[in-house]
């Protein structure tokens, strides 16, 4: 079993980094009017941890008594939707994207129900209940519109905490109704502190260089760092010998696919790359991730080893003049992928586009050189 979740900080004071944020959250929780909130930041930065700490600050240890319910909602077309709901006496946590296209129904029904019931516990510190909505950025437009209205209407009984990776997919009315809380990724030192803290709790001796390596490797994703730590610990109980942090299979795979694209540009190579894409997709690597480009990748004239995805690796390897174009097309095709129905078409269209760009670029370059 995964051990690190046991050491998840429970109160705001336990948190190891972003102290300024913790102080602000604490004073907000102490004040009478707690606003709707939107936590956003990269994954593994500690958004959910901060949310649960805030809840504890608001209501005391009662929020830790959780129960898991399965609720059934009925869509307008009489389809039954099962949604897992985690709740305590004071809050309720849902992941509406589980309902797919019918998330509006879930949001409306659930929020209305909660908003119409008063807090029964007389000893509760606050009169309202909190609804935590995970993955808020994958809510459909409909659901977001429904949410917007409910947020205004039932403020007296209910507060909403949204959790999202980025605010760009949320509609403006929601953003303006929430207090935005950015949870940035921890930096290297902060990650090392956390890693050492967990190691100490586990009564485990974590060498300095090992923690540094883990922190560097995980690129600001705390959850990933802890996972890597745990994996390493499982592999060699004392972390002796040279550490090899194995990248996930799919990252290595992506690297090689990117190399294939850059090496040769021909119809036969297109087929080869497609076979690799199929292999990635059939191992549950979402196509949007294959095309994803982290901004941190684009460090001019420096070959970092942080690239994860095919697109990142390609961006790394092509000439400076082409990088913008490669990214431009990645965004175009990612957008189409989200609206279309066959992911592989768009992946391949991007690949071929990059190949074509790269080939023409190299060709012109050679000619210019020649003259």
């Amino acid at each position: 079993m995964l051990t690190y979740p046991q050491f998840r900080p429970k109160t705001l004071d336990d948190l190891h980094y972003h102290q300024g944020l913790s102080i602000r959250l604490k004073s907000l929780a102490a004040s009478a009017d707690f606003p709707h909130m939107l936590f956003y930041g990269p994954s593994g930065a500690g958004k959910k941890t901060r949310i649960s700490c805030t809840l504890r600050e608001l209501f005391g240890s009662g929020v830790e008594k959780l129960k898991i319910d399965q609720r059934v909602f009925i869509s307008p077309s009489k389809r039954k939707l099962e949604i897992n709901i985690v709740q305590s006496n004071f809050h309720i946590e849902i992941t509406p994207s589980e309902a797919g296209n019918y998330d509006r129904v879930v949001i409306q029904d659930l929020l209305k129900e909660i908003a119409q019931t008063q807090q029964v516990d007389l000893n509760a510190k606050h009169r309202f209940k909190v609804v935590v909505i995970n993955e808020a950025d994958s809510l459909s437009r409909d659901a977001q519109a429904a949410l917007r209205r409910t947020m205004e209407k039932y403020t007296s009984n209910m507060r909403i905490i949204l959790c999202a990776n980025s605010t760009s997919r949320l509609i403006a009315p929601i953003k303006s109704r929430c207090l935005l809380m950015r949870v940035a990724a921890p930096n290297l030192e902060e990650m090392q502190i956390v890693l050492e803290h967990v190691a100490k709790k586990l009564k485990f001796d974590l060498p300095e260089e090992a923690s540094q390596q883990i922190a560097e490797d995980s690129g600001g994703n705390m959850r990933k760092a802890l996972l890597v730590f745990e994996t390493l610990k499982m592999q060699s109980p004392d972390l002796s010998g040279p550490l090899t942090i194995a990248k996930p299979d799919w990252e290595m795979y992506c690297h090689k696919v990117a190399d294939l694209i850059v090496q040769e540009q021909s119809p036969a190579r297109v087929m080869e790359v497609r076979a690799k894409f199929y292999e990635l997709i059939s191992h549950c690597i979402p196509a949007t991730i294959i095309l994803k480009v982290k901004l941190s990748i684009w460090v001019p004239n420096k070959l970092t080893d942080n690239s994860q995805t095919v697109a990142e690796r390609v961006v790394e390897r092509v000439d400076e003049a082409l990088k913008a174009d490669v990214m431009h097309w990645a965004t175009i095709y990612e957008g189409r992928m989200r609206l279309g129905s066959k992911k592989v078409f768009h992946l391949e269209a991007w690949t071929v586009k990059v190949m074509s760009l790269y080939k023409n670029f190299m060709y012109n370059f050679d000619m210019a050189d020649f003259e």
Partner: protein
Amino acid sequence: MPTAKPHSSTGTKPSAKKTKLKTVKLDATSEPPGKKLRTSARLPVFHLTGSEHHPPLTPPQQPSFSQSQTQRQTKDVKGKGKAPLLPVQQEDDRLWVDKYEPTIEADLAVHKRKVEDVRRWLSEAFEGGPTGKLRKYRRILGLTGPAGTAKTTTLRVLAREMGFEIVEWRNSMSERAPSHFDNDFKDLDDNHWMDTEALFDKFQSFLKRASACHNIFSESVSQSSTHPRASTSSGQPSKRHLILLEDLPNILHFPTQARFHTALQSFCDSSDVGPPLVIIISDSGLRGENVDDTCDFSGGTRWSKKETIDIRSALGADLCTSPYVTRIAFNPIAPTLMIKALQAMLTTHFASTTEKPPTKDIIEMIVESSNGDIRSAVMALEFACVVTLPVKGAGKGRRRADTSGRGSARAVLEAVTRREQSKGDPPATHLSAKDAAKERELDETLADPSPLPDWLSEHNRKASRVCVETLASDSPIDSSLLGLYIHQNYTMFCTDVDQCDAVSEGLSWTDWIGGHLPSTTPYAFPTLTLSTLHALPTPVPRKGQKVCKPSWFDVRKKEQAAWEGVGDVAGWLGHVGASVEHVPGRWTHADIAVELGGWLRAADRSNNAQLQVPRAHKLFSHLPWGTAGVGGDVLGENEHGEADEGEGEDDMKVVRALRDQEEEKGWWLESDDIEEVE
């Protein structure tokens, strides 16, 4: 004690017996219970119950019963009038599928190893294997596989050979429900005599009684279990039966599904080991319109959107992984085996007549188009023998009827690619002089478009011979399937990456405007065709390229299996973590797929006994570079690849040799097929 019918007597009259079976299928309630679903030996108790409670023949039953009788009376006339080809002395007009249903294992077209698997399971279920302890775990057997892969037939044949009885559940029509029993055991219970039970209640009581029925024989069974040798001997009258579920209750309805799962669970959990249960589920295929999963963020949609029955939804996730359930998957029937079976069938059929059996070509064509579905192959063969068609025509007709639309898809695609020769191009070498003349004629009717201005000169093309409008209106397939086929094959017809770029850009664009809903826009098909035509080089190079089936289907199937693995891991994390304050929802399905792989593999290697990681995680966490699996299929050189899988080595060789032969004979499209489509 009444003795069971000897084997030989049942074996000699298979056809008569099957008539009964067939009638039962038509109306489940019309026959006396004692006769129903009898496959091999008779059991004494059925006689008793049958004679004690003969169900009265009530009006709604009467018509159907008499109808089957009149059918029998008129069939001679019908047989003569309908098909002069059929032998005159032919006595029954049943379809070949039923008439020549295999009765012994040698006749089965299923691979021997599969039959052996099923047989072993059955013998373990009845006798408990070598140690006698396996019986407890051989409770439910799930037979899966595409339609027409002889799942049910295998079971029936084995029932006959091993001498056990099949008790089958059938959903009865609701209007008959009040006063009738829909199973053999109904009438044992007087309380339910007049009840209007819900269908599912009936199912439950069926299951209960079917397993409880065992108790009546418990004496004899315990005897046989003390003398296992005796019970295996073929002469021994059979006391054994198994429950067959083929006609499942409506488990797409959520509450019914839940009750179904609990019913099966309690069936497994019951301390008293009753008869085993066999569930037969036909896989449903994928369609080109199917949307890849739209939601990349969580696997949630996958669970709520399920619309077809598979073994997982039928048995429930818990039961699927429990030791009580064994699953045997049938593959599509290999072409060699099918040809052998069809020829054996023809030999029997034409043994008594002077009629000429259809030629080998026709059989091969039938086998090719059947995609491993032997039922459809037999149907097609019967049709081919009833109506004399010119060899060529027969082949084409069937190719059209190809269920998956594969043949027609190929034809349309060929029309798009091969025909893309513009006016004035030299005639292709493979065309005869006559065809070349025809093309020249066609060229004259085509007017060249007016030349484009300079800045668009790169888009200048000569007039195409393809008429997009006709193609769109005549096409038997929709744009999504065409898109898949173009996507699979376009690279072969391109000489340059820039051309590939234009084609795939067109594909991407069409998919994008098409949106999630299938065929909402009428523009998708023409846009797709035009963009492809525009992008392909002129003239399209001909190097004998072979058009293949899109590997998207296989990949999609693999992906779904892998997502189920992710679901298993998610369930496991939530389940194990319930004690700690680690709740499901912290890990989304996508997170697990992307991030947890390394840890899972390490957990596997560590051999920690406390870590019971679901085995299914390998489906998504192991991704070695250069696996040939998909690569080979992508090239699609082998359309029957799925049929070969799991079959013996020798079979593979034969199939391969056969395929080579077929390719020489032009097993891919011939030019005249395309003419037809255009």
